């Protein structure tokens, strides 16, 4: 029967086309395998990494993976940990909670990892928690949501500055500038909503009043309506909380509206793409973040300065561009885990690893100096932050 034969043909075609990319790439990418320590007799320590290589957060997952790959290679060249090489097994969660759960399950059950770094986003990080708890292994997240450590779980650590750290620092700084009325604009996604909640909780302590609170969504193309409202409410400064590309739209909208009041942002805006997108409108924009952007902020005699400089140099050499903060968060997650491993006997358990990570004290990383504790799995203080300002198309330390 001809029709049936055509059906079969089509099915075959579908399968064939679905397989072609696999076959085609397996030969070209073969050199990318991770077994560097070929002459190592010892089993590698396996760490899982659930990163968003595709989907909405693909732009964040990429530098994170870059940093991890670079650092693992270096650690292994230096002889690994306790004589064991480190092996990272990467999973792409496609910025999707379900995929993150399945990936975690695969890492735990199929790969038998000792710890998991991830996920890139707060949503994925939270979704993984069930699997993490079932397996009882530690999770170190490079995602920034306050909820990650705010909704405390003994197994879950995080490396970025949380909003609960950055917000009070930023508000205090604004108050010091003699400003009393601010307008807030935040995205409706995880980072913005979280930031907004922390902002509203800390306004009174900083002696500030929010005269307008506006929201926008990822993908919005113009925020001048919200900004007009902020302007009309008599705000003396705009505080923006978002990590998306809409940040540069807000900056340019303000300039186009002729708004001269200062714009403050967050560590979510510490990306060159923001300056590129906002152009001249980015001038004078201020935000608080860790000291990685300008290592001199540490003071050039400190260990932190050396660590940061070293990372920046090697990353720039390897990837042709300076690392952003996300690369730094991944760096910290890996090194905190590896450091904890190095304090343990060779065949430690997951529970011991967790305890060792929690015992991290004064670890000098990229994001800051980490000291975890039984009820603090974020580990940083306001001392790790510094205020930046955009001048002549680049970051400088705000005076």
């Amino acid at each position, binding site marked *: 029967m001809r029709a049936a034969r055509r059906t079969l043909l089509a099915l075959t075609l579908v399968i064939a086309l679905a397989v072609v990319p696999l076959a085609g790439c397996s030969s070209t990418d073969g050199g990318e395998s991770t077994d560097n320590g070929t002459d190592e007799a010892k089993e590698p320590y396996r760490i899982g990494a659930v990163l968003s290589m*595709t*989907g*909405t957060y*693909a*732009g964040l*997952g*990429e530098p994170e993976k870059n940093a991890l790959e670079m650092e693992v290679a270096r650690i292994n060249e230096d002889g690994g940990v306790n004589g064991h090489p480190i092996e990272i097994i990467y999973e792409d969660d496609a910025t999707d909670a379900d995929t993150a759960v399945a990936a975690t399950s695969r890492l735990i059950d199929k790969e038998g990892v000792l710890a998991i770094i991830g996920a890139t986003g707060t949503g994925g990080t939270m979704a993984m928690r069930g699997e993490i708890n079932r397996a009882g292994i530690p999770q170190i997240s490079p995602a920034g949501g306050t909820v990650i450590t705010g909704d405390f779980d003994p197994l879950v650590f995080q490396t970025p500055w949380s909003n609960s750290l950055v917000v009070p620092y930023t508000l205090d700084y604004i108050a010091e500038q003699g400003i009393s009325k601010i307008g807030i604009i935040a995205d*409706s996604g995880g980072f913005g*909503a979280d930031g*907004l*909640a922390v902002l*509203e909780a800390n306004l009174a302590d900083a002696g500030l009043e*929010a*005269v*307008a*609170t*506006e*929201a*926008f*969504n*990822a*993908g*919005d*193309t*113009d925020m*001048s*309506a*919200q900004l*007009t*409202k902020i302007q*009309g*409410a008599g705000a003396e400064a705009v505080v923006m909380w978002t990590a998306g*590309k*809409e940040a*540069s*739209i807000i900056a*340019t909208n303000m300039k*186009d*509206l*002729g708004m001269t009041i200062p714009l403050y942002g967050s560590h979510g805006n510490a990306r060159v*793409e923001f300056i*590129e*997108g906002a*152009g001249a409108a980015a001038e004078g924009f201020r935000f608080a973040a860790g000291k990685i952007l300008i290592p001199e902020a540490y003071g050039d005699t400190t260990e932190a300065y050396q660590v940061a400089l070293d990372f920046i140099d090697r990353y720039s050499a390897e990837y042709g561009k300076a690392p952003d903060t996300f690369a730094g968060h991944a760096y910290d997650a890996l090194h905190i885990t590896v450091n904890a491993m190095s304090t343990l006997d060779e065949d430690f358990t997951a529970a011991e690893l967790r305890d060792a990570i929690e015992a991290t004290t004064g670890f000098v990383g990229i994001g800051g100096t980490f000291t975890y504790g039984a009820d603090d799995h974020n580990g940083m203080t306001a001392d790790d932050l510094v205020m930046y300002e955009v001048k002549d198309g680049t970051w400088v330390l705000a005076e």
Partner: protein
Amino acid sequence: MISSTGLFQGRHGKTVDTPELLQFALAGLKNGSIYALVALGFTIVYASTGVLNFAQGEFVMLGGMLSVWAYSTLGLPLPLAGLLGVLLTGLVGVIFELLAIRPRKDGDPLALIIITVGGSMLLSSLARHLFGPTEKALPRFSEGSVNIFGASLERQSLWIFGIAAVAVVLLTFMYSYTRLGKAMRACAIDRNAARLVGIEPRMMVTLSFGLAAILGGLAGLATTPLTQTAFNVGPSFGVKGFAAAILGGLGNPFAAVLGGLTLGLLESMSVAFISSTYKDAISLIILLLVLFVRPQGLFGGSSRQKV
């Protein structure tokens, strides 16, 4: 916590003066003109196939991405880079039609819609492979703003208004007065009848995809200087454009533009008088109410159903 925003604004609410109102209106029209451009793209493909092209948002993305590529990577001057970006987008539209739409011979609208859904995923993913995951910027065609009775509008937005205005006039002219335009419409209504009177419907469909892609590319080129672009911006453009096309009423370029502007104004007025948190929800609820009362959209005639 965010849900208290509405009350919060109410406390601080003050009367809106005229320049401010005008500014809100301009903000709405700015967004609205972008929605209108996307909606026009929907209209073109709909007019010749009866299909909503879910890949329309990706054409907008590609227009921006390819222009950025031509500008930054090839180092072409902006006008040339833009031209190349838009033409390449048009080419993508034509290739997409030839490879993925034309082989489905019966032209079943639902099947074609699902193909455009697949095409949308594919184009955005390919853009990520080619251009990477981060957002890209493009300089404005014209810097600065103009002052309109105390309200301010960036010159770049005038370009978007201009493109939308020219496009709607050209399309209306084409559909009403040229043989080509009439032919394009004819084949959505009845492919066989179109063939009988000497129109090659397949050619018309290819053309309409190319035209829609060019228009989408123009939209992407014109908006990228304001909004930046990234591989994943397509769907949000698509959804807004779809909403605008439906709000206006499918099939008529003027209705599409009016739908886009109305949607933009609804959103900015929601921000002005109700809450920016719920601006999308409010405009969607209004859209639904409009549909429940006028199932053919605000400005759509019901004449098509009778054909």
